[in-house]
């Protein structure tokens, strides 16, 4: 690596200093503190008692936590499995050489990613409204025999969340796929076509391997993001929803830590989530070994 050696001694410390100070106080210290907290029970930020591994034991036997975990997994899996193929398909359409106005389409598809989840939740609370919401009115018009009042936010909470997430993130992920597709070597595709490969073969044997590192990165990114779902159901349902149908892991953390006031239990939930996400990252690294992720 090409590093400067002819600088005054203080220079690197001056530049890295502000980051290191703030990082040490507001990231490194809390990280250790969260480990300490996860072995304590607290009543608000002031009083805490050491309880050993009780938090984790309680968590393992806490049905609400398992509900939250299941909901979060279902949401993440559905989002990744439905959204990412859509993103890739959209990117491939947009990448066709004859398409004009690519920048405008890209801008339109990307625009939902700019809107904060709280604001999206407010808009979608109306779209999903049972009696006169946009989605039900539309579906009633298109599908004959569609029920008069389809209870999205009362019963079909997960499908509603997934629909909203598709609207939010499909365009955002498409940006990555499009950038990757534009980097695919055109000569390689032409060579394959010369050798008599058809469209499908070109896709499976040339395009897909070429965008594999980016695909891995996008899958990981959206899985990690989905696992941290909180605001959407929280605002959309005004809480966990009927029968905890919209309860997620981060929501459960929030409720325990900041409504009940047990920062210890919240930290235990936080560590469970962190370990899950690190596991997912590790698996992704193993799977895409050989191709560079970034």
């Amino acid at each position, binding site marked *: 690596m090409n*590093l*400067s050696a*002819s*600088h005054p001694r203080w*220079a*690197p410390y001056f*530049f*890295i200093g*502000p*980051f*290191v100070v703030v990082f040490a106080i*507001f990231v*490194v210290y809390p*990280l250790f*503190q*969260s480990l300490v*907290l996860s072995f304590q029970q607290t009543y608000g*930020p*002031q009083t805490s008692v050491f309880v050993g591994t009780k938090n984790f034991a309680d968590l393992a036997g806490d049905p609400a936590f398992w509900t939250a975990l299941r909901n979060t997994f279902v949401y993440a899996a559905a989002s990744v499995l439905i959204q990412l193929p859509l993103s890739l398909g*959209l990117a491939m*359409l947009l990448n066709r050489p*004859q398409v004009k106005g690519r920048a405008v*389409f890209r801008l*339109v*598809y*990307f*625009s939902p990613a*700019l*809107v*904060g*989840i*709280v*604001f999206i939740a*407010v*808009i979608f*609370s*109306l779209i999903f409204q049972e009696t*006169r919401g946009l989605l039900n*009115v539309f579906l009633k018009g298109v599908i004959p025999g569609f029920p008069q009042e389809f209870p999205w936010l009362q019963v079909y909470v997960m499908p509603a969340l997934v629909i909203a997430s598709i*609207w939010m993130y499909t365009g955002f992920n498409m*940006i*990555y796929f499009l950038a*990757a597709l534009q*980097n695919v070597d055109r000569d390689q595709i032409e060579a394959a076509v010369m050798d008599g490969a*058809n469209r499908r073969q070109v896709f499976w044997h040339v395009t897909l391997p070429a965008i594999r590192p980016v695909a891995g*990165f*996008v899958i990981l990114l959206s899985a990690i993001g989905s696992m*941290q779902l909180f605001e959407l159901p929280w*605002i959309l349902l005004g809480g966990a929803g009927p029968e905890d149908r919209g309860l997620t892991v*981060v929501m459960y*953390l*929030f409720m325990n*830590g*900041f409504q009940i006031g047990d920062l210890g239990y919240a*930290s235990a939930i*936080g560590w469970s989530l*962190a370990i899950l*996400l*690190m596991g997912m990252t590790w698996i992704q690294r193993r799977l895409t070994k050989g191709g560079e992720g*970034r």
Partner: protein
Amino acid sequence: MAMVETAESRRWITVMVYGLLIFFAIITLVPFAYLICGAMKSKDVFFDGQFLPGGDGFLGVNWGGLTFENFRNLFVNPNFSFARSIVNSLFYASVSSVLATLFSAMGGYALAKFRFRWNGLLTGLVLAALIIPGPLLLAPLYQLLFRMGILNSYAGLILPAIAPAFGVFLFRQAMLKSVPLELMEAARIDGCGEIRIFFSVVLPLVRPMVGAFLLITFLGAWNNFIWPQIVLQTPELFPLAVSIAQLKGIYSTDYGLLMAGTLVSILPVMALFLMLQREFISGLTSGAVKG
């Protein structure tokens, strides 16, 4: 089946491609249209038609049902301070994005371009910190802010957000590639000080990254809900995201008011993005795709 594309079939494919692209574009834009129309409808006609209120005016629209009343109500209602929230959001998002970008660029510069004792260790720490999920730090940070006495203050809101490991990593990568050591050496020989080198030689070389990261962090703060919701208790301090959530709890049936508030909340970031979109998208993908 080989790829035989006659002029006829090629035309059909083009039509299909555009058809699908436009279909998805419409689906993307419908909620925005719904939001804009909703914000302009008065209470009594809100459900007379999904977009514009139906009636017997021109084109079958009840134009008289459209109003700016909702926007006015946002600002005159004595029960909440919407104007104050706009100022709060602007302040919170600007200060945290400028500081986060400055500290990230400086940190990335030190790690990318200087030989010093802690370089390896700090680079490793920054990389390791990338996988810490945000929610894990909520509880201990809350406790820390309580002990420091800065709960319910902008210091508590902003300080934890201005040392993003992600930013240092991005700037380090960008500077490894696009800041030549010879340029720094030449500036030093010309008698240019280290701080001036950073601001007038190095930063201009990574200008796209500066723009992109400013925008990413501005958006992140503007749209952040969970942290201000935890830190702030006084409604006068609430940024827009928290205010809108509050509004939805209290005025859950005043749809026009809610839509107007949401529209006003998302317009500034939309405008900002339109101005900076080229830099933003190139910066966004530079971490994932080798360019």
